[in-house]
């Protein structure tokens, strides 16, 4: 679904992609260090869509574990690291060197995954903030065990389920252990204008 109010120019799209490319590159290297294996990323996919459409892209009515950090600054954004429960279990398992039973790991995984999300998202956000020359006020990470279509409930202020958001979605793959996950950044309508301005300011500074 296209949004009539905001038509990003090609330059703006490229800049946005470039910004997030930098960010997720840094996030991937942090994750790669944590799990000690190569992390492969897709090109950021920037789409105008409703929360429902985003949920469907992540898999309709799927159980997911997410770690999200809200950030306020030149534009407000919600950043999220998402794994399905089985894969998140494997990620945690690989990070803990001591041998623990699956039962205990299940108990510990939300705590560990919150820290992992924090490391990955921080490294991404700090690179974006640095590139923009701006500072963001970032909240502590929150872990959620939820369904895909409930992912955005109560997390970002929306004007309803039909409201169009900008979602920036990156697919991640841990090559060795075949684990798939997503990095998702979501901006609501109010933030889009701020992003538009920020991108313009940045473009103007290059000119």
């Amino acid at each position, binding site marked *: 679904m296209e949004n009539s109010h905001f038509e990003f120019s090609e330059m703006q799209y490229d800049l946005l992609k470039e910004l997030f490319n930098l960010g997720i590159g840094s996030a991937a290297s942090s994750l790669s260090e944590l799990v000690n294996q190569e992390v492969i990323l897709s090109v950021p996919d920037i789409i105008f869509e409703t929360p429902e459409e985003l949920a469907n892209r992540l898999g309709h009515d799927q159980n997911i574990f997410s770690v999200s*950090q809200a950030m306020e600054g030149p534009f407000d954004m919600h950043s999220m690291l998402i794994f399905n429960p089985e894969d998140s279990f494997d990620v*945690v398992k690989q*990070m*803990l060197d001591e041998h*623990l*039973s699956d*039962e*205990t790991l299940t*108990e*510990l995984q939300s*705590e*560990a995954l*919150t*820290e*992992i999300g*924090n*490391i990955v998202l*921080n490294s991404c*956000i*700090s690179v974006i*903030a*640095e590139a923009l020359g701006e*500072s*963001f*006020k*970032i*909240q*502590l*990470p929150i872990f959620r065990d939820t369904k895909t279509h409930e992912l955005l409930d109560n997390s970002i202020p929306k004007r309803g389920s039909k409201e169009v958001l900008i979602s920036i979605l990156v697919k991640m793959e841990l090559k060795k252990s075949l684990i798939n996950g997503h990095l998702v950044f979501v901006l609501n309508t109010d933030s889009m204008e701020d992003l538009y301005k920020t991108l313009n300011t940045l473009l103007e500074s290059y000119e």
Partner: protein
Amino acid sequence: MSESGLSVDLKNFFSSLNSGVIVLDMQANIVCWNQWMEKHSLIPGYKAIGKPFDEIFPELVNQRIHQVISSNIKTGLPAILSSVLNKAPFPLYIPNTKEKERLQQQINITSIEISTTSSRYCLINITDVTASIKRERALENQVQERKKTELRLIKRTDQLQSALYASNAGVFQFDIATKEIHLDKKARQICFIISGKSIFSYQQWLKNIYQPDTHSLEQYLQSSINEELGYQFDFEFRVQGVDDEIRWVVIRGVIGLDANNQSKNINGVLVDISRQKEHQELVLAKEAAEIANQAKSAFLANMSHELRTPLHGILSFANLGQTRIDKAPREKLESYFSRITESGHRLLHLLNDLLDLSKMEAGKMDINFVEYDLKVLVGQAIDEQKARMDELKINTECYYQSGESFAVFDNIRIFQVITNFLSNAIKHTPIEGIISFDIKKLNGYLQLEIKDQGVGIPEGEIHTIFDKFQQSSFTEDGSGGTGLGLAICKEIIEGHNGLLGVKNNPEGGACFYFKIPLKQKQA
């Protein structure tokens, strides 16, 4: 506002928290150190406040703490350090304990901004999660223990399965309340059950039990359930397949009890014992054949002895007569002839008895059942032997209830038995003794007892006296018996579906008795 830039209210709030609070300014100097930190680090606030963070924690090896603190000071990025990935980074301990136990920690690092002064601080909040980690560890130990137990159980189950496989046994389970029977694949095979399902109703299962065995199996099951047989269950029965193949099966199990000690189920194994049974039958048949063979040999040995004795008599007296015919007086020769005649009679008597017995044993004895009065037969027998008894001054007594001496039997054969018993009694009763007859009805039988006043039967011979060529040791005096008389009596009484025996009277002497049914099926 204090000199650190943090309000007194905020510091009081931090002090009241049940978690550690360290606040750093933008130069990483400590500006707040709450009571919880004093208590658990054993560093008083006045020693910590104003000091650089690194000076207070010179040996903090966790690189991530340094990294996140500096990144928070620089860009305001928040961070969480979980107790899972960070093993107790700060040197904090449980207070007032001898052994210094380090606290497990969950650390949150955030920025706080004081709007009035526009200054920003780094807030380190430390939560004690030792208790929950201990719980996790306890859980982990339990889990490991459970896994070990499971492994042991799996191993034992495998061993049991192998043992069952090797023993050719099937597993069965009988639920007493639901009357359901659970049979594994092997058990189903043994019982000729083709169905793939493993649970059957008791009635369904009974259909595969060989009909003549169902009643006894049901009785045994019921007794087991009623705990009349203890907690072991062991029963042999037959099962029958669709093509009428019969198989011997043993069911062995234990009775399981519920919380109220009531029989709940029977658990055990089913084993096909057809081969063992076949083997057992062969062994029994072999033993029977060996016994029959021994009996035949004994019979032949006895026979030759019994035949040879009178023949010797005949031959030796005939020979004596031949050699002395010229010299011996006439009376002597007459005595030789009478000895020859006597031996001839004995031989004839013996051969008659033998013929009788072999006929009876071959089941070729003709029995002519008629209703008859036993008391009349007793009278006839006494009359027949009267001359001999008078000679010995032996008296007889006969007891009976009027009209209570009738039964259905072959009067000629039974007369033979009475005569035999009576002549035995005469042989053993002393001069002027009494022989008594007692006729009575007893539980559908008519019984006759003949008591003498002799020395009685030695205990060891009571059970063999009716066998062929058996004579009581005290009659083996050449009194003329063939040793077949009582064996013939036995055959006659058994031919009447009756019983016979001998016992010693408490007052002395022997008592021969027999009883025959009042009515015969064939009659």
